[in-house]
């Protein structure tokens, strides 16, 4: 038993924090979030050069083949700085899908993802939003050795700046939603594909991806026809654990802001942190942040060490994070009062992230349902 980060992981965290403190101060986050595409090529290049997009990519495909715990340690810091999640979209989630489903046939693309030359997103969710296998209904119809995709993917992260899109589609309908799902690699310039940024209080850029009779060759299929759910399920589990570390970092920062503010803000002649009501919100947020961190690292550790019940740990971590991150932000708002709603303070950006990530890769109810099924005694 050893709950400390390794020296190497600690160094990784330090160097990440150094970069982000310099390149991504809170006014830069706000500026980026308000920019047209929410993407900073200069920052992207630096992150890629540090290998952040290469960590989950196997060494055989030109990546670093890092442990997931290493990746989580990095993303804990990214979460603290509310770093845009493009590095996650492409460098973790899409990379995992590629690696799990078809590293062999698409090793070239995976290498480009690792170096950051290519940005790839994963289009899974549809108008009936959800993360179970049943959520994918978009049909891919075989025609003359090619496939034609028709339909809409919604809430797809970073599709507006992606070079390629991994589209989960249904090559076969049937009673078992886990069967008949396939993945297709669709290039951005593909005829019939259109991408539109959605607007609102979205912590990251989410897009509507419309596929209007998009015809792709059979070689665009990533992995086996009809067998995509199993690798997607594994890839999502691995990515989710990393995302949980990111969310833990965000919750920690929102909590620390509240702690700091409670020490310096004076009301009724004393720091507000001396009031029990204020303390209680901070104590709760601190518990959330700590629970998120422990459950995230436990999930990462179970995935790294190949535990059978890693999915249980992942769902536990995400259920904790989906509840804890928004709640910690809300507590921090509560402590800050009106000033917390001022964009220039920075807290609002964490709250936006928290609420957007809450349903991403499965909300608390989804993961709790999964936990209950995993816990049920075998009959």
């Amino acid at each position, binding site marked *: 038993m050893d709950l400390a980060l390794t020296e190497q992981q600690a160094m990784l965290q330090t160097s990440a924090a150094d970069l982000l403190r310099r390149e991504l101060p809170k006014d830069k986050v706000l500026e980026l979030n308000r920019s047209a595409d929410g993407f900073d090529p200069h920052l992207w290049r630096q992150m890629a050069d540090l290998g952040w997009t290469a960590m989950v990519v196997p060494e055989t495909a030109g990546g670093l083949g890092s442990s997931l715990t290493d990746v989580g340690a990095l993303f804990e810091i990214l979460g603290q700085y509310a770093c845009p999640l493009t590095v996650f979209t492409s460098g973790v989630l899409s990379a995992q899908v590629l690696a799990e489903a078809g590293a062999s046939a698409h090793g070239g693309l995976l290498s480009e993802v690792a170096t950051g030359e290519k940005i790839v997103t994963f289009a899974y969710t549809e108008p*009936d*939003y*959800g993360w*179970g296998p*049943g*959520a994918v*209904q978009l049909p891919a119809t075989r025609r003359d050795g090619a496939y034609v995709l028709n339909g809409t993917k*919604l*809430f797809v992260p970073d599709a507006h700046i992606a070079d390629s899109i991994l589209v989960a589609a249904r090559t076969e309908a049937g009673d078992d*939603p886990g069967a008949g799902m396939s993945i297709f690699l669709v290039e951005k310039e593909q005829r019939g594909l259109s991408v539109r940024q*959605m*607007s*609102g*209080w*979205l912590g990251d850029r*989410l897009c*509507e991806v419309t596929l209007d009779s998009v015809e792709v060759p059979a070689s665009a299929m990533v992995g086996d026809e009809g067998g995509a759910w199993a690798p997607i399920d594994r890839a999502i589990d691995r990515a989710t654990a990393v995302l949980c570390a990111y969310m833990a970092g965000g919750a920690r920062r929102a909590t620390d802001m509240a702690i700091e503010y409670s020490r310096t803000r*004076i*009301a*009724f002649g004393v720091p507000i942190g001396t*009031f029990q*009501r*204020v303390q209680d919100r901070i104590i709760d947020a601190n518990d959330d942040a700590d629970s998120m961190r422990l459950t995230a690292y436990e999930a990462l550790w179970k995935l790294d060490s190949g535990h059978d019940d890693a999915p249980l740990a992942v769902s536990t971590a995400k259920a904790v994070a989906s509840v804890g991150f*928004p709640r910690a932000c*809300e507590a921090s*708002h*509560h402590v800050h*009062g*009106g000033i917390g*709603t*001022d*964009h*220039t303070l920075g807290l*609002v950006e964490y*709250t936006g992230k928290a*609420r*957007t990530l*809450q*349903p*991403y890769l499965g*909300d*608390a*109810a989804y993961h709790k349902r999964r936990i209950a099924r995993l816990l049920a005694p075998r009959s």
Partner: protein
Amino acid sequence: MDFAYHYTAAQETFRQEVKAWLAEHVPSHIKAPVDSEFMRGDLYDFALELRRKLGHKGWLAPTLPTAYGGGGLSVELAVIIEEELRRRKIPTVFSNPLVIPAILVWGTEEQKKKFLPGILHGEKICYQNFTEPQAGSDLANVQSRAVNLGDEWVINGQKIFVSGGGPGKADWLFGPIMTDPDAPRHRNLGYFMIPATTQGITLTPLDLMNGRNQYIVMMEDAHVPADHLIGGDHQGWQVAQTVLEQEHGGGGQPHLIDQDLDNFIEFVGNASRDGRPMSEDPLVQQQVAECYIDSHASGLFSMRNHWLYHSKSELTYEGSQSSLQRKLFGLRNADRMRAVMGPYCLLGIDEQRAPFGGAPEVFQRSSLVRTHPGGTIEVQKVIIARRLGISKTRESAAPTPQTAGRKNGSP
């Protein structure tokens, strides 16, 4: 017991009058915007003009005396007017009504005549000039200063989180200013009606989560006539208490209405997930019911307060209880709606995919922002504890237009 108003035939006839008047004066395409942030341009001008018309009919303050610009009507007719205005979803220009009880309770007869008709006729727009950077929950810590020059006062200082349409739109800024730095806390303030056009007053918008409808008010050597002081020059805190008594929920509401809840129920009724109607999902059913229950129970608190207020009963903790619950259930319901609607309730008013024109997204932000103004959650709890008689400090309610001059003693 009776939890509803029942209307006579004459009252129902009056309702038809109100309906007809609204049909005549409000074109059918005119509706309140989903986000009050976007109460701009032509719509603002229309709403301002409509406000004047309503005011001159006495329908802005139906139960107040006609001598001051009110309607001199019964509570029932006031409720009917409110029902019809709401049903029609007319756009309203924000003017903080809480100035009215302060003047009614604490103003001299001259001041009532001077200020009230303009306000009640909808000619004048009022912003509440309360919060300061160092006086939020601790409102008594107001630091802005008013110096007496005999005929007038000179005011310096800064207010923040002042709500309204912004520069050039306000007529009066009302609130407490320190008149006597040597006097003890709660006895060192005066309550001023500051003309917004006074030289030295500037409004700068804040960049907030809920938009740019809140302002920093800078007051630099602003000269204000002496008769713009409401109450004595050491009674500003007491005047503010009358305002807060109302703001903290003491007036109540006669209806159980919640547009965000109605939207949510409709969303669930139309949506599907994994190929099945969302309304049949047992988890969704629980969330819908919890939203309804929370909203309904909070509404009953508000209805009880309305009844207590209009039956001229003395309230203790009830105002703050209602205000607290409104703040808390808003947060809880926003949370439940996120759990059911997922990212749909984060889609903004410009997004074609947004349900109800983005109203759920506005609610996601407003429910969080609303926890602070009008007394934070903490302030409400402090008041409730005092009035339950368990706190170190004991207090009873401040006088309101309904109770002033009764057993509380006149102010």
